[in-house]
């Protein structure tokens, strides 16, 4: 019961604090799931995020559903998805059916505007954490080369991230022998229990 309450609260907070659509909730989910409740490690969260970005559909509910399932099965999954989506759907129905004129929510816009830089900070911090992890895993030289290459592919050549991630996953699967630049085993310890 306590666990389900925790799942509910974690994703309820994510749902009502994630201003700016699904992607803005990523750092919030990370905060709850990795930092606060320690349901998974950074590694698994990164894998989840990578696959979530490769697959279609809204990112917030994919994260919530998978994490809920990992933590306590189908019920946990339902709990997490409902906690993420229901509160704001209610709000939406309530506001749209009570406001006949749509002009009256300037203050709501002000609120959203103030939250966006806060989410920016959270995303920037999370970015730095991922880059640090990558640096520890494959060395700083390869990491920096790869960051530059990825940036050029995504932002200048406008390659879809799903395609890039998919290609890298396949590369990791088919590459046999050759230069084995794997993570030191100690790095995985304590994660993904």
């Amino acid at each position: 019961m306590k666990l389900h309450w925790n799942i509910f609260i974690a994703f309820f907070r994510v749902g009502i604090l994630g201003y700016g659509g699904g992607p803005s909730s990523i750092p919030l989910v990370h905060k709850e799931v990795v930092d606060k409740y320690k349901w998974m490690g950074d590694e698994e969260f990164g894998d989840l995020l990578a696959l979530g970005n490769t697959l279609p559909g809204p990112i917030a509910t994919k994260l919530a559903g998978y994490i809920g399932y990992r933590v306590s099965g189908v019920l946990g999954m339902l709990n997490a998805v409902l906690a993420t989506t229901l509160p704001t759907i209610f709000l939406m129905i309530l506001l749209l059916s009570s406001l006949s004129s749509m002009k009256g929510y300037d203050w709501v816009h002000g609120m959203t505007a103030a939250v966006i830089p806060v989410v920016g900070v959270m995303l920037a911090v999370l970015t730095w954490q991922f880059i640090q992890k990558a640096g520890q895993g494959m060395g700083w030289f390869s990491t920096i080369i790869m960051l530059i290459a990825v940036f050029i592919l995504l932002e200048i050549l406008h390659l879809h991230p799903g395609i890039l991630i998919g290609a890298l996953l396949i590369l990791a699967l088919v590459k046999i022998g050759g230069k084995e630049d794997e993570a030191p085993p100690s790095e995985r310890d304590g994660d993904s229990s």
Partner: protein
Amino acid sequence: MIYWEIFLAFFIPGILGYGGGPASIPLVENEVVSRYGWMDVQQFSEVLALGNSLPGPIATKMAGYIGYEVGGPLGAFVGVFATVAPSLLLILILLSVLYKYKDSPKVKRMTLYVRPVIGVLLGIMAWRFFGESYANIGFFQTAFLTVVSYLLMEKFKLHPAFVISGALIYGGFLL
């Protein structure tokens, strides 16, 4: 059968919307406005405008509200289910297969390869949020909110819930 139409209208954007909820907005519009004619462009843009200023994932807010408009509470449920379930099922299957083999060097290598991409994606996303904020409220407000929220969250380890609530109050009164 209205519920079947609602299901289809949100199932298609759900499985075609690569790049998270916001990517599915034009797909939803295509179904709801062009194909089924449940709303006109004006109504749709009002739903979108309010949806964008409320918290939470955008795709399920749209599906829930439009489903409710068209088919009542059950319609809302069908819309949200069609948006969420297919991609959720896919990620559950893929990740459980992956984690069955999580000690294999190949799977470890996947994690390793993908990490810098996630780093760049998050970095780009952060940059866009700052850019949007600059366009909305200008340089000084953005810089002020950025510095204050960074200090509160990273130096004083305040939970982001409090920082976001604070920003909401600040924005509601002062912006």
